């Protein structure tokens, strides 16, 4: 048998890339969700803003975040490459094609779902990530009386302060931070944006209901003893719980 092709130029190699980047992004979703759940805390964003600082300044997390950006880009590029190849594999389509008889709608439309998610991602990043990293968010000061536990807060001007500090003096803890929480609150007053988020989370749900178990299938993990668990997690964790909780965030801010 002759020399074989390099793995990444093969069809299965490309699938492997899709699968691994996809699973990595799934893992990120869990972390992201757990952090963002702090938005629901009624503390004027103290915990959330602390968390946001930690996530952007702790070196190991920063490394992971670059991997994350790379994963998104690679996932998108390979999706395009594979889609183009698949298009070429059937130059003349069917006049009549009854896909619903043999497969689920979302499994056939991962590209469309993915595109919705990509549009969402761009919006999401420009609203929060970009503003946070480019110093376009307001600042806030929290004062917590350590003996009573009562916290008060007030907006501060960027001119007075830069970045982040945490000090304790006279039994009062003073936290100064970028107020991403406020940015969230502000952004989610926009009904159009809220709608986009809800739609995007629906797309994410359908993307992952197929994508999660599909990724396992691609790496060859399809064992009758465990496939049920994989499918359960794919549907309930990634298809239901995570998207609903994410979608709850804009709705929470919009309606509160």
């Amino acid at each position, binding site marked *: 048998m002759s*020399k074989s092709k390099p793995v990444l130029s093969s*069809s299965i190699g490309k699938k492997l890339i899709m699968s691994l980047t996809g699973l990595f992004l799934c893992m990120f979703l869990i972390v992201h969700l757990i952090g963002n759940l702090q938005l629901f805390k009624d503390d004027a964003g103290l915990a959330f803003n602390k968390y946001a600082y930690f996530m952007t300044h702790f070196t190991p997390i920063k490394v992971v975040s670059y991997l994350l950006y790379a994963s998104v880009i690679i996932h998108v590029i390979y999706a395009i490459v594979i889609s183009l190849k698949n298009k070429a594999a059937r130059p003349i389509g069917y*006049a009549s*094609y009854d896909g619903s008889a043999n497969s689920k709608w979302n499994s056939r439309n991962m590209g469309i779902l993915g595109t919705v998610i990509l549009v969402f991602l761009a919006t999401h990043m420009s609203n929060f990530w970009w503003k946070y990293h480019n110093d376009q968010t307001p600042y806030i000061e929290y004062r917590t009386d350590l003996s009573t536990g009562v916290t008060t807060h007030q907006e501060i001007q960027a001119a007075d302060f830069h970045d982040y500090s945490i000090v304790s003096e006279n039994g009062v803890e003073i936290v100064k931070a970028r107020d991403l929480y406020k940015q969230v609150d502000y952004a989610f007053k926009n009904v159009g944006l809220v709608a986009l988020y809800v739609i995007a989370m629906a797309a994410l749900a359908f993307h992952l209901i197929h994508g999660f178990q599909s990724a396992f299938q691609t790496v060859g993990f399809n064992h009758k003893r465990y496939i049920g668990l994989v499918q359960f997690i794919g549907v309930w964790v990634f298809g239901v719980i995570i998207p609903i909780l994410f979608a709850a965030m804009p709705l929470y801010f919009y309606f509160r």
Partner: protein
Amino acid sequence: MSAHMNLTLKVWRQKNDKSKGQFVTVQANDIADDMSFLEMLDIVNDELTRKGEDPIYFDHDCREGICGMCSLVINGRPHGPKYGITTCQLHMRSFHDGQTIVIEPWRAAAFPVLKDLAVDRTSFDRIQQAGGYTNVNTGGAQDANNILIPKRIADEAFESATCIGCGACVAACKNASAMLFVSAKISQFALLPQGQTERYERAQAMVDQMDAEGFGNCTNTGACEAECPKGIKLTNIARMNREYLGAKLFREEDIHG
């Protein structure tokens, strides 16, 4: 007992692999419901022939669901509206009087249309030639019972080996991927002790040839499994992925160029 029906067929007609095709509408009248779908086409062709018109060319041979020659997409479904059967086993009782039926060939770049509804599936043969065998010459085999194979493994290998190579998996797949077909053969040999010697070379050689033929990439929609007349399972594709990636990532040194 048997009901009769009149049908409108929209059939893909194409003179040869070089010409452009188009849909042509043909009437099929007085069709009994106990006819097979191909017998219905026989009747249509009989009428066309009597009128001196070129009959509709379609591939078929055994007409008992095992040779894998028949290959029609009927109303958007390979082998028609029922599951688990080939076109030749489809009977007209699955249709109703007055129905319009769209009949198309398998559509894939790797399956060029030869004429009307017949396509060239030699790409499948070339994939098999790349590695779908064990390297044993006639005559040197040991006694058959010297190889013990647990019944469970033998049965599973059979389930994979039962593929008839019709190509419905490719036709059904929105990506025109051949992975179900390729994985069935790789699985059969990966499961059996007789297939171990060339196990990893085989997976690489067959996947390479599959890619070279221009089939699409699997996106795990499961359409192939649903439409396969022999019930070949998606687990075969997972196994192929395992075999191939295992070979590539951990055993590349096994290939001799």
